[in-house]
């Protein structure tokens, strides 16, 4: 989870950020790119206590959301990117933190309304959102539990979610 990034040294984070900055604007706004790079980007910003990038992070997610459209925001990669980025953002730059949080809530609602698909990365995002108090446990908790059972009828859904998150280096 995000502790991987916390424990990473700054040179590694900077390498990752440089790699991200070398990408074209179109690629940067892809959910897969956001998932791979935004948590480190946010972490760098927080660790350096400058919060130069909060605005840019929020802007990239808003652009991604516009590309996905309302029917696409239950996308598991996008939702996981939002949740993992929020975990690393400086909450005291609240306007941008809140902007990303609002996108997560909107996406979670879409996930719920579209049948709460048992996609591991979606479930990672919902579970993280509940744990971090960004999502209402009463609204999303029961659907999460049901989806975890669909994901793994044997009852180890959380382990499957964890594996998926680790594969995505979250």
């Amino acid at each position, binding site marked *: 989870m995000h502790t991987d990034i916390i424990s990473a040294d700054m040179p590694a984070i900077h390498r990752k950020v440089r790699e991200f900055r070398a990408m074209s604007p179109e690629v940067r706004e892809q959910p897969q790119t956001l998932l791979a790079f935004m948590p480190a980007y946010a972490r760098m910003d927080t660790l350096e206590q400058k919060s130069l990038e909060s605005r840019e992070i929020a802007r990239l997610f808003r652009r991604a959301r516009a590309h996905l459209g309302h029917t696409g925001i239950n996308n598991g990669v996008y939702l996981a990117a939002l949740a993992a980025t929020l975990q690393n953002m*400086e909450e005291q730059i609240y306007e941008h933190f809140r902007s990303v949080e609002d996108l997560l809530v909107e996406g979670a609602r879409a996930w719920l309304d579209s049948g709460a698909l048992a996609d591991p990365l979606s479930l990672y995002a919902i579970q993280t959102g509940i744990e971090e108090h960004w999502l209402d446990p009463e609204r999303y908790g029961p659907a999460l539990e049901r989806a975890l059972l669909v994901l793994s009828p044997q009852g180890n859904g959380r382990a499957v979610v964890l594996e998926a998150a680790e594969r995505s280096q979250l």
Partner: protein
Amino acid sequence: MKILYVSSRSVTVLLDESGHYEARSPLRLRLNGEDRGSVSRSVESLFGLWPQTCYILEATAEDGRTDQVEFETLPEFCTLNVRDFGAAGDGITEDTAKIQAALLCCPEGGRVLIPEGRYLTGPLFLRSGITVEIARGAVLQMLLDRASYPILPGTVRSTDEQEELILGMFEGNPLPCFAGAINGFDIHDTALIGEGVVDGRAQDSDWWDSPKDRVGGAFRGSLFYLQRCRNITVQGITFRNSPCWNLHPAFSEDLDFLNIRISAPYTSPNTDGFDPESCCRVRLLGAEISVGDDCVALKSGKVYLGRRYHIPCDQVEIAYCAMLDGHGGVTAGSEMAGGVLNVRVHHCYMRGNDRGLRIKTRRGRGKFGVIDHIRFEDVLMDGVKIPLVVNALYYCDPDGQTSYVQSREPLPVDEDTPRIGTLIYERVQALRCRGCVAYVLGLPERPVERIVFADCSFDFEPSAEPVPNPAMADGVEPVANQGILLHYVDRVDLRGTRITGISGQMVECTQVRALNS
């Protein structure tokens, strides 16, 4: 004489309209013919009155002049004494639940009495329509362990996820914070009166360690905290050693703070005295403040709250107060995204503050971040290093030192650009200044609109030590014995104003459109 406030058990009166915090001479008071001793403040409060009773208050000056005023105290339905609810008041037994029970049982029109004693307590929550009296000799000693304090979530989304409820606030953002010592949420017509003390005891706890961080799941709270309240009065109470800001009313209106005392060590972190945030019709009269940060700071959200709700701090009167130790006597900002408007500071005494009036903002606060119509009238300053500082490039906080905030090149005026309108200094007398009369740093793309100095006098200490950082912005040089230093100002009116003891010019201008003197 003028009656400022009457409760069932107390009165606050303006005794000397032309005094500062101190009246021009001591006054002998008689209440219904009974001697109430000599007083020295321009605004005084008397306690121990009886409900629904007519009184005649006489004040006699040393020269024999006498003035009098009549008033009638308000009715009161009953008194609930917290001792009758089991409060021990021994400083050892925790009394939180007992005091809170009395507060919850008290009907509208009733009084909760906290008599003499030392009450070990956690946060208390007020309710509407009651008077709470912390009597002389009573001290609310706040618990030292932050784990004993409820956490107020920053925001709670409504059930349909379309709206939000704001509960906790920290430095202008809705973030989880520990409850204050005394809290009010959505209450009205409530008074907290008396000569007692609310003691946060932060010096004996860990509140002042890692002051900017979430510790134990939340940020620091205050000693008196309001959210969405109206018609609230605080009279006579002493607040000391707060974990963070001392008094923090937010999104509230019609608030009176009369003859309160606020103290915290000069070195304590962010222990602002009185910080109304997005509040309307606020009076702070006859207060004495000595703290570790700004004595009074008028606020309206850092960015998010200002933009979402655009509720300014509006119609604020600060009068007959003493601002002693503290960075700024009266400050607007830096959390001002909803605006700070129509502020009148008059007949105050400021001693030894770093700044008299301090305006703090920066790019990014947004178009609702307007500071306008701020007046200082008949203010006496002694030993204030710099009487006026205006800084539109304020660099504190994580995002303050970016090139966007600190650029001296004009940037496009847009949704993120704050505005500073008219600031008026009239009949301000400042003795023993050290740095400069005024250091004004506006935005290159949106200069400060107008500054007026009328009938003021500024006298400097000879050969004063330089004051570093007159404005907290990049590239600002120390100042010593200098006049009015202006950068990016539209118009300055200077009339009847005298400056003595400076080296160099009375006014030094950079990018000032009009200087009228």
